[in-house]
């Protein structure tokens, strides 16, 4: 029996109708074989639009439906639901994308209309070959994995744990806290960072629903929405967490002193160490590469002094497989490496420091006890702060790092307050867009900070005048005055931008999510789904999605938590049934397909001598289908017939 196909062409207001002659597309569709009805409508996704389809299914007995409108990534679920509500299997519906990949790409109406016809024709031909499919429902595991224990991950973890759900919080450093723990004050309110962060860290450490896995990372992530398995590598701390009381005696007695990462190398730590006193968990780790026992085979002082016998040099790294229903990535950012911009002399000229180094200087428990000092131990009397280092720069990162203007002004304030120095800010534009930010800018202006509008061209120690001798000279075009200025100073602070973490590629691969052009994780929709990803059940929050300040990161952490909770509370999820299947009658058992499946979903049935697909493991990529030399493997909703029908229709 011939199919009865209904075709619905959406105007999308003027989004489609402006370039595509919808009437002409409807006329064309009406003339296609088996098309019972073709209509156009202002907004197909609206209730009346959907009603139109439902009515036709019921009254005209449509057996197939094609909607020509926006991208299926946008509204496919909407129309599938509508079709299903009218009693037709949702897979008997096909969407023709005549907006994103047609009306919006050209101004040539004639060609756009031709293209729309081609797209609709292909969908009509394809839908004929589509088959009804059953959607599988699977229960959702209520546990949530959170990767990254900075302020974003902390916020998300507490939100979820407080709702009574189990959270696994994975942090690769020995402690949670992230960058925020290194900051002195926070803009624009100048709260002490530690004062507002530490209580939250403690809550995480004590929460009965949070299992904190510090000094650990995720090495594998498999499964599907609601039922993931995360493989966690737990690096050896050589300190048994259950036994350690955090007394700190081991650290005190350790004879090895090395530069502290937490202090940007400006201060020292021991080979057995906690990054900072408020670390959570409050358990030290042994730095294998620096420990005398591990490098030279002698010492074990820490073990001798530990009152609880917690030191265990035999500890090995272990792996744990965690079952979770959803995951939130809050892996944060890296700071731009200032030594890449050679003209500012970072690493070459003393007293050129980064903003984070300034934070450590300024921090009361930092290497200088909160004093801002030059290399020679004196206080600077002139300080220049250079904005946009590595940001808004086509040679490095084109994007704005969003936080540097504000933290630069915070640094100006701290520098002025602590040293009385004259402070210069070299900026391109000042971006003070948040709540209370503009007011903060005004306050800094009133503190007589000198703002010079112009990106610094270079920092040099080649003096041209006697006043410049022995100083660092910042050269910049003052674009308001239209002249090149040379400002001699004692200290230069480089306001470095935010970058994707170096392991972003690896993490994206492990979690099968995409990255945007700037390298950060890609959200599902920049406005409407900012913490979702294209992979269901995997969420992103904070600066791993793009540069963010603390208020925005916290907001996203909470948002991702709400998204994950919403998924978990659904209790079950539906799975796309677009998996591969093997026709036993055609399979000759050649085993071409078996090694191709990345999920080991294909096995060989020795008794029947044919290959078999495990539905639960198959993710529906279709690679085996393309490789099967007998045409014995098919992919539901992407069968050869369906794809060939599309090809034929397009080429006709």
């Amino acid at each position, binding site marked *: 029996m011939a199919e009865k196909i209904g075709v619905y062409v959406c105007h999308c207001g003027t989004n489609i109708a402006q370039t595509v002659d919808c009437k002409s597309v409807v006329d064309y569709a009406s003339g296609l074989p088996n098309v019972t009805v073709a209509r156009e409508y202002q907004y197909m996704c609206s209730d009346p639009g959907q009603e139109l389809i439902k009515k036709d299914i019921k009254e005209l007995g449509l057996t197939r439906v094609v909607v020509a409108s926006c991208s299926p990534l946008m509204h496919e679920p909407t129309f599938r639901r509508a079709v299903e509500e009218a009693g037709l299997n949702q897979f008997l519906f096909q969407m023709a994308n005549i907006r994103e990949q047609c009306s919006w790409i050209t101004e040539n109406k004639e060609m756009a209309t031709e293209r729309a016809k081609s797209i609709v024709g292909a969908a009509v031909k394809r839908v004929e070959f589509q088959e009804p499919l059953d959607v599988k429902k699977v229960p959702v595991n209520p546990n949530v994995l959170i990767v990254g224990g900075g302020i974003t991950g902390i916020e998300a973890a507490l939100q979820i744990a407080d709702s009574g759900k189990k959270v696994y919080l994975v942090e690769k450093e020995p402690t949670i806290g992230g960058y925020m723990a290194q900051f002195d004050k926070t803009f624009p309110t100048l709260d002490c960072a530690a004062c507002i962060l530490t209580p939250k860290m403690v809550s995480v450490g004590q929460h009965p629903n949070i299992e904190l896995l510090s000094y650990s990372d995720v090495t594998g992530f498999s499964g599907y929405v609601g039922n993931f398995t995360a493989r966690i590598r737990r690096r050896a701390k050589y300190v048994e967490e259950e036994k350690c009381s955090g007394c700190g005696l081991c650290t005190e007695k350790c004879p090895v002193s090395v530069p502290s990462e937490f202090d940007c190398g400006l201060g020292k730590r021991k080979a057995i160490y906690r990054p900072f006193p408020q670390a959570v968990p409050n358990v030290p780790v042994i730095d294998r590469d620096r420990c005398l026992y591990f490098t030279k085979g002698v010492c074990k002082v820490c073990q001798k002094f530990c009152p609880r016998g917690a030191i265990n040099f035999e500890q090995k790294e272990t792996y744990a497989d965690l079952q979770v229903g959803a995951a939130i990535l809050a892996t944060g950012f890296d700071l731009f490496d200032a030594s890449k911009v050679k003209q500012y002399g970072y690493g070459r000229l003393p007293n050129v420091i980064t903003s984070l180094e300034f934070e450590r200087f300024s921090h009361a428990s930092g290497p200088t006890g909160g004093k801002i000092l030059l290399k020679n131990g004196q206080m600077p009397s002139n300080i220049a702060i250079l904005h946009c280092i590595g940001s808004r720069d086509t040679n490095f990162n084109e994007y704005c790092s969003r936080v540097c203007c504000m933290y630069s002004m915070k640094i100006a304030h701290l520098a002025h307050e602590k040293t009385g120095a004259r402070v210069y800010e070299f900026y391109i534009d000042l971006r003070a867009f948040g709540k209370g930010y503009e007011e903060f800018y005004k306050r800094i202006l009133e503190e007589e900070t000198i703002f010079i509008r112009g990106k610094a061209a270079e920092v040099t120690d080649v003096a041209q005048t006697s006043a410049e001798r022995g100083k660092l000279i910042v050269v910049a075009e003052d674009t308001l005055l239209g002249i090149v200025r040379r400002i001699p100073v004692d200290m230069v602070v480089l306001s470095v931008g935010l970058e994707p973490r170096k392991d972003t590629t690896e993490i994206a691969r492990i979690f099968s999510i995409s990255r945007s052009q700037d390298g950060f994780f890609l959200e599902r929709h920049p406005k409407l789904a900012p913490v979702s990803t294209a992979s269901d059940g995997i969420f992103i929050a904070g600066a791993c999605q793009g540069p963010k300040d603390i208020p925005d990161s916290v907001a996203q952490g909470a948002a991702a938590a709400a998204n994950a909770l919403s998924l978990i509370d659904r209790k079950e999820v539906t799975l796309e049934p677009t998996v591969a299947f093997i026709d036993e*009658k*055609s*399979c*000759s*058992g*050649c*085993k*071409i397909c*078996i*090694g*191709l499946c990345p999920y080991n979903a294909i096995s060989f049935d020795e008794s029947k*001598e044919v290959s078999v697909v495990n539905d639960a493991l198959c993710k529906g990529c279709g*690679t085996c289908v*393309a*490789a*099967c*030399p*007998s*045409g*014995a493997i098919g992919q539901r909703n992407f069968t*050869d017939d369906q794809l*060939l029908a599309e090809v034929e229709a397009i080429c006709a």
Partner: protein
Amino acid sequence: MSNPKAAIYWASSCGGCEIAMLELGMNLVDISKKVDIVFWPAALDFKYSDVEAMPNKSIDVSFFNGAIQTSENEHMAKLLREKSKILIAFGACAYGGGIPALANTTSREQIFTRVYKETPTTDNPDGIIPQTKSQVKEGELTIPEFYNTVRTLNQTVDVDYYVPGCPPVGEQVLAVMNTVVSGKLPPKGSVIGASDKSLCDECKRVKGERKIKKIMRTYQVLPDTEKCLLDQGVICMGPATRGGCGAQCLDANMPCRGCYGPVPGVLDQGAKMLSALASNFDSENEEEIQKIAEGVVDPIGTFYRYGLARSLLRRAKA
């Protein structure tokens, strides 16, 4: 009731299909008792005019082997179609173009140049190449036209059944004959005398990991006779080729070259085998992959050795 009448004809082919008929041996004698052969130029002295004189549909079954490469081939295909109730494309050439269809990788002009001017044994100082018409003093002489593109039988006339193989193996030929004699024929358009699964189904070799590191040509290795040839880097068309031959080539430690054509439901045998083979190249690195790919020296000749004419593209661009 009189015996059914049969015709056997040989178009562009090597004659192997005729030999396959003779290979029936004493069975042929039995068959000849049940069937009257009315036309078989290779074995019996009939003229085309005899066939032309026969009433339409007076032959019960014609076995047509060979591809269509000349106007004579085409003429005879049309003639036998007209005179026969059942027309069977017999052998790889009639079914898929066979070896002659590899001519489709080049052109008539290039073939003539090569054959009549360039081959080392050619002595043709005047550079004469065949002309369909030539004037001699006795009058005009004609020879059949040589086509630029080789076609299969069903690209020329309507065909009822297909018997693949280069040549079809003996038992299968006998089975086909018996089917025809019995009159119990499958639906029109069927491939007969072959299996419905790929050759791997009947191949005894052990199939391994399918990790192809390097393509080996048959002269470069003496393959292990127990293991699948693909696992040893030798391109075997078996996975993409219809079975039914009993994997005889494999028994001789040679790879399947694909003469039985694609597995049912497969549109293009060559593209399918290419995909099956290349998908299993054992490298994730683009340069290494390229290196392995270079090992496929003559893709068309490898993947479409017997089926270029019935493939999707049919021929190389002129």
